[in-house]
Structure formats: C-alpha cells, structure tokens
C-alpha cells in the first residue's frame, strides 16, 4: 500500500496526530484537508529529508531495520520487537510511531490488525539510509597495492576436492571426518591454502565446521549437501557420479552461485541478519571502501555468536568468506595499514543475476590444453569434466589460474589397473590439445598403450 492509500484509510484522530507531529497549519476537522496537507508536506523532498533525519535520530536502528526489511507489513509483536531497539516503553513507542506518518495501523479483520509502512515510504527511507551511509563510508579512487582476489578459486578447489575423493581411497574416522593426512594433501593441491590447526571450540557454521578449516568445511558441506560426496557406512568417502554429473552440467558461474547460496543459507543461522548485511555491502562497496568504515555501517546488524565477538563474525565469517567465494576482494598498501574492501564484478553478477542469466566467463573452445614435452598437461581453460578424465592417467601438480597435471609411470599404471580406457584418454589429449602432442611424449604414450603396462619404459617417478 502506498502512503496516499494509508492516509485515506486512517482515522481522523490519527491524521490529526500526524498533522501535529508535522507541525502543519491546516484545518484539523476536514479529513480531505488533512490528507492533502500531509501528502503535500511529505512529498516535498526538503521537508521529507528533515523528517527522516528527525525519525532517524529518534528511532535509530529500529527505523533502519524496518526500512531494510524485505516486507512492509508486520504483526503487532513483530513491530513491538523492532521498536524496542529504540529503548522506550513499547506501547508508548507504537503510539508515537503511529502519529508520525511512516507507520500505519491496518485492520485486516475486526479481531486482527497489523502494522504497515507504506511501500513508497519504505523505499524513500531506504534511499535516505543509503545516502546517509555513503556519507559515512570512506572510499578511494586509486587501487591498493596488494589485492587479495580469489576469483573462481573456491570452485576450482571444490573440483579438486571432488576429483581427489574420486581418485583416492579416502577413509573416514569414526566420527565421519577425513583423516588429517587427506586434509594436508588437499591443502597442497588447493589454490588457496588454509591453516589446518583448528581452535577448540567451533560450531554453528555448518555440518563439519568442527572437523575442517572454514573454507574446506564450506566446500565439503556443500558437496555433501548436493549429494555429490557420500559418507559410506564402511567409513569411506565416495562420489555419487550421477549427482556430480548433474552439478557439472551447470555453467561455472552457476556452480559458484550455488556455492554462494549455500554459504548464505548455512551461515544465516548464526548470523540472522546475513542477507541484509550482504545487501548493504553490495549497495555500498562498489568502489574500494575502507573496511573499518563499512563495518561501522554494518555493525548494528552484526551480533556476537557464542565465542565469536561481533568483530570476529564480521572478519572471519562474513568478509573472509565473501573473499573466498570471489564475491569481494580485499586490498591494502602495507601489511599493517588500513584494509580496503570491494565487491567484485563476479560478486555483483552472482548476487544480482539468476542462475540462467549468468554468462560463463569463458566461451568454451574446443581446444583447452597443451601437452608439454616434459610430460605435463597444462589446462588453459578450466573444464571439470575434461579434467576428471585427464586425472584418470595423470595427477594434479599445481592449481591456480592454470591447472597443471603430470603424467607419471605410476599414474598411468594406476589408471590401467583400474581398467580405464587409455586409448580414449590419448584421443582426448589429441582432440583437446592446442598443439600436437610432442613426439617424445607421444612415443612414450604409444609404448605404454602397446604394452598395457610400463615396467620396461619406467619414466621418472
């Protein structure tokens, strides 16, 4: 409902109260006159801005939360709870709010009524807050020297995790966690490494927060939630090929978007205002923004969660994770100096576009890899399905902007012993290669293929 409709439905005593609050000089006995005078006053930008400032000062966080709320209709209890932040007696608060022109009583039925903020008023209030915050945050025009931008690393590492589980025999402890050995190996293969020492008390941020470092826990929980990894009864971790294949059929950005949504769902339990916070960040941090000033704006929405103080929640659960997800990047000029924060282009896309509308960052070309004469396969265009196939006879050597696999006698032997199709694999290298396979490598591959084993040809291990 819009402001004009709310005013039309309001009782004459309410309108009188509003007129007095707005200090209007009109006839207090004509409803038409009152409505017109109030509308005229609140449609005047100067006058409205003045009122907003007054209400903002009076209601503080309460008004902000109401303005940013996804709904504009509230039950009585809800409204009392929201207004309680202003710190006054609640019934008195309600009465005062109803006399100011931004909150109205709505009679749904004779027995039930709810509270409503006119839609146009709510939008104007939001804009008021944005302007206000923009004045509070500090931005810079140039780029910081150091920029921590993880791009699509979270997705690449998710693929590495899935490939790892697929290729290895991953055992689980009695409590269902991977053994430390596996975690350490994963950290070596990951593009972004995390310390594996965990603080003792950790819970609330997903199913396996207790067992793994934050980023790995998120990746793992997501894979588990999607049904791509299965914790089997016999304490082994395996991959569900069908679910994996479904997931990989999505574009890369769509995959990352799912991971982001999973993060928001999971972390919303300990951080109830997470959606609002991310919305605020998205709104404000399109330039390099001082991290401290951004926190100052968001702080009222960030609450402590058990052992995490509000600042910890902000730093470790929100900022750090958004960086991991490629949504934001962090910059600084020297290690001890001021931190700057910016939503990435990728982040804007992920947060504002639907899955179907997300363009992939690469138009897939047929050719995607280069086989080097030193038996390394350099993957130039990431493609999880192709890489899963490559990994049948090779192993991941390093990940990053490029992913490098190496062919070793033991990796070929492993593939053969698992009954994988070596000739199909050779054909893949040939068709997806940007250049012919070097003669020395081709010769060795032919030798391996011909012998069905490689004992005689033993290349460096």
């Amino acid at each position, binding site marked *: 409902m819009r402001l004009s409709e709310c005013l039309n439905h309001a009782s004459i005593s309410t309108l009188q109260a509003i007129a007095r609050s707005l200090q209007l000089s009109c006839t207090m006995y004509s409803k038409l006159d009152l409505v017109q005078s109030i509308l005229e006053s609140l449609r005047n930008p100067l006058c409205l801005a003045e009122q907003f400032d007054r209400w903002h000062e009076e209601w503080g966080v309460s008004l902000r939360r109401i303005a940013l709320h996804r709904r504009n209709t509230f039950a009585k209890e809800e409204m009392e709870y929201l207004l309680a932040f202003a710190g006054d007696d609640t019934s008195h608060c309600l009465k005062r709010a109803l006399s100011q022109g931004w909150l109205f009583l709505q009679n749904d039925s004779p027995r039930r009524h709810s509270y409503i903020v006119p839609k146009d008023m709510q939008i104007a209030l939001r804009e008021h807050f944005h302007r206000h915050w923009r004045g509070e945050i500090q931005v810079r025009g140039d780029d910081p020297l150091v920029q921590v931008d*993880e791009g699509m690393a979270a997705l690449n590492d998710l693929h590495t995790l899935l490939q790892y589980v697929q290729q290895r025999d991953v055992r689980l402890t009695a409590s269902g966690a991977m053994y430390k050995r596996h975690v350490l190996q994963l950290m070596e293969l990951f593009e972004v490494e995390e310390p594996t020492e965990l603080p003792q008390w950790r819970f609330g941020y997903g199913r396996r927060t207790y067992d793994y470092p934050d980023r790995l826990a998120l990746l793992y929980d997501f894979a588990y939630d999607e049904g791509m990894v299965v914790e089997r009864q016999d304490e082994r971790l395996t991959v569900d090929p069908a679910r994996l294949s479904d997931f990989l059929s999505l574009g890369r950005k769509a995959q990352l978007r799912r991971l982001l949504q999973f993060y928001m769902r999971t972390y919303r339990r300990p951080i109830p205002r997470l959606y609002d916070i991310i919305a605020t960040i998205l709104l404000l941090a399109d330039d390099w923004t001082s991290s401290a000033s951004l926190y100052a704006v968001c702080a009222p929405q960030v609450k402590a969660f058990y052992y995490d103080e509000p600042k910890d929640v902000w730093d470790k659960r929100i900022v750090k994770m958004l960086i991991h997800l490629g949504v934001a990047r962090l910059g600084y000029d020297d290690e001890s100096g001021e931190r700057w924060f910016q939503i990435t282009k990728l982040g804007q896309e992920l947060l504002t576009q639907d899955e179907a509308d997300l363009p992939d960052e690469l138009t897939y070309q047929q050719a995607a890899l280069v086989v080097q004469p030193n038996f390394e396969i350099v993957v130039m265009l990431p493609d999880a399905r192709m890489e899963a196939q490559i990994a049948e006879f090779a192993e991941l050597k390093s990940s990053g902007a490029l992913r490098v696999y190496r062919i070793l006698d033991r990796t070929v032997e492993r593939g053969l012993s698992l009954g994988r199709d070596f000739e199909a694999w050779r054909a893949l290298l040939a068709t997806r290669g940007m250049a012919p396979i070097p003669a020395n490598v081709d010769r060795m591959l032919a030798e391996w293929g011909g012998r069905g084993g490689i004992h005689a040809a033993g*290349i460096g291990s």
Partner: protein
Amino acid sequence: MVVYPQADGRLYVSRSADPAGRLEVDVLPIAMDDFAQPIQVFDDVTVYQLSPLRLRELARSGRSAVEVLRYLRQIAQAPVPIQVQRTIIAEMAAGSVAAPALTAAMTASPGDVAIALRQDKQLRAYQQRAVEAFCSGPANGVIAMPCGAGKTVVGTAILAALRMPALILAPNEAACAQWKQHLLAWTTLSERDLDVHADEPNKPVAIATYARLVARDRRGQMRRLDSYRQRSFGLVIYDEVHALPARWFRLTAELAGTRKLGLSATLVREDGRAGDVLSLVGPVVFQMQARDLTEAGHLAPVRCFEVRVPLAGRERQDYERGSAADKHRIAAQNACKLEAVEQICARHRGERTLVMGYYTSPLHDLAKRLCAPIIDGRTPAAERLRLYGEFRAGRMPVLIVSRVANVAIDLPAATVAVQISGLFGSRQEEAQRLGRILRPNGKRAVFYSLVSDDTVEVKRAFHRQSYLVEQGYSYEILAIDELYKGGWSLCD
C-alpha cells in the same frame, strides 16, 4: 599475450591462447623479462619464474612495485595470487634500500688500457646487446648464453669497451688457451700484454684457471691468490661461472675488481645451488635461449636422437645381479654401444664427429676400433691442444673425449655428437654436450645419446634430457635395429 600467474611464482605466458584479443602491452615501460626469467620454453607456452634478482635490479633502476603489479594485472588472465604480490613487493623493497650499485658514470669513463677490437671483427646484434646490457647495467652481472652463442666474443668486447686491467678466470687450461688465442685474434692486444698463470701479474690482462689461483703451496698458503689480491683489476671475468663451486667463488670474490662479469651457458646446477654463485656474482643482465638463436639462424638446428641399445647375454646377467652402482656401470659400458657408435660414424662418414663418454675404458676400446684419437684426463695439455687443432682443421674426422672436455673447449666444426654414457642424469652435462655441436656453422647437427634399453639408464636419460626438452628441443627415440636398417631419415 596472456599470462596465467601461479601461487608458486611461475608465470605461464601463452602467445597463442588469447581469446579476447587483449590490450597491446608492448607500450608499457615494463616487460616480463624485467622481473621474471624464462625457465621453460615450449611451442605454445613459456614458463617464467619470478626472479628476486631481477626484481631488485628493477627497483634499483627506479621502478616501483606498483608499476610491476599494474602491468601484471593488465596482462593476467586471473587475479594475481597474493604470494606473487608479496614476493614482488618484498624483493623490490629490498632492492631499493640496498647499497646503490655502480653508476653509469663510472662506466662512462673507461680505463686507460690500450685495447680495442680489430677493425674486421663484427659483433652480432644480440652480442652487441649483451655488451651494452653489462656496460650500462650494475657493476656486477651474469650473461647467460648457450654454448656456441659467443660468450668469449662478448667477454672480449666488454673488455675492449671498458678498457680496464682485467683478470679472466677459466675452468681449465684448454679454456685459458682459448681465451688467449681469442684475445690475440680479436683485439689489438699482443702476447706482451697478456699474463697466463703468472705468479705476480703486472700486464693489462691476466688469465688463470680457478684451480691454479686458489692452489696452496707446501705450507698451505694461497700465495698466488694473495699476490692477485694485491693487484687491482678493473674487471674480473668468471668464465663458466655456473660450474664454479661456491667456496672457490668466495675466495676469488675478494679480488679487488671494480666490476665482475659472470659468463654462463646455463643457469641450471645439479646441486640446486645455482642461486648461490649467481647471487654472489650479480643479477643476470642478459639471457638468451638456445632456441631463439637457432631460429635466428645463429646456431645450427639440431636433431636429438636417443638410441635404445639392447643389453644382452652375459652383461644382462651381471646387470640383474649387480648392485645399484654396478648396474649403472654395466649399462654404461654395454659392448653393443660400441657397434652402434661404429654404425653412426659410418653413416656420418666425413663429418666431424665427437664421441663423448663418462667411463674411459670403453672409450679406449672404441679408439682402437675406430682408429681415432682420444683425449682423457691423462692426456697432456699440449697434446690436447694439438688434437683440438687437428680436429678443427678437419684432418681427423672423429675425436673421442672423456668428461674432461665437458666445459670450455671450442670445437667449432663438430656436426655430429655421440654420447655413450653420462654422469648420473646430470642435466647440466647434457646441455654442455649438446652445446658442443650448437655452433654457428649453418649445418644441421645431430646429437645421439646411447641408452641401454630396459635398464636404469632409460630413467636417467629422461632426467638428463628434461633440461633440453625445456629449452625447446625434442628427443626422438630410435631402436637399435632402426639405426641398422636406416629406416629413418635425417633429411626431413
């Protein structure tokens, strides 16, 4: 050009995979080579590694980390990993606070030694660039070029440009003799101006081997080194600096030289300590890849063959029973290899053929079978020089050398090299040996490496070759019967 930066400091540069037609980066004042050095060169991809030395040098020349990072971000296909950013910032900070290097002002006033290049001698363009890079660069630096690209020429030209009293340190006698010959042929210096192994040098240019310089007398005194330290040299040239043990270098580093020049064929060292000596001498001021030179026609194109020779009969039995050390020796001394060498020599009749090996007894057998001269550790220096001369003059088509010939001899006429055994998978040795035939004589050269099939040698050979492979050469593998049948052709 597109760059994919990796967290380990490697930068994969692809010139073909440029999907979006990136901005032209050549106009920027910084280039990849300013802060990274190529470590692997393939057809489509060149792998660079961030180089702390070059970063420091760049900082000294007044560039900032901001500029390098801005450049890298422009050409990078993905965000630059934080580790790479940190390295760049830290090294450039270290470079800008380090003591200022010798300024160009000092190099602008050359010394008073009367030395000039002879009128008829011309430098190639890249040699000229190398000379300029050193002369206008920091006081100390390394020039890395493949064998045959003319390191001696560059060293001589620098000497002539700086006109300072100089000391040239070479790895062995043959190399010293070669330097002397070269200086006489290329410059206006005469015999009177040169000291070779003098106890108390007082002529404009002194030449000595590292070993003689640091030799101790009966009382354990390094008298020669002391007397050299008394003298002040304007320029000290370290030939084949990569082969120099760091301990020796530290001793010789105390020589009073205003400028130090390291010459090197390769930046690879088996002990992984290349960084040590190189950092002691100075940054790499100029580097050239063998393949670039081959493409430019300065070096002969090379085909590399690995010939698989069977190990059979009694030798195979001994091999199977032997210890790890025995296995290597038996595989290396495989008698069948001698036949294979004969076959190769017959195929290349009339061409200068160099046969190289690690174990001397098969080399002596081979010398008898081929009626060819052999040079090993016991051959006197004078005899060596005579044999080199004969070979160079074309009077002897085949020369057999043990590993004494690995470094710093000049055999410009060799077009065929046969390696019958090598040091345990040493990549440096392989590069040196290939370098023997990488000479600018325009003729296609062939490099054979003989490997006993189905033995430890196969694996070792793979390691040895990996360096060459990374330099852009590829190996073709031949079975022995293909060699006999001649079912392969050198003409393609």
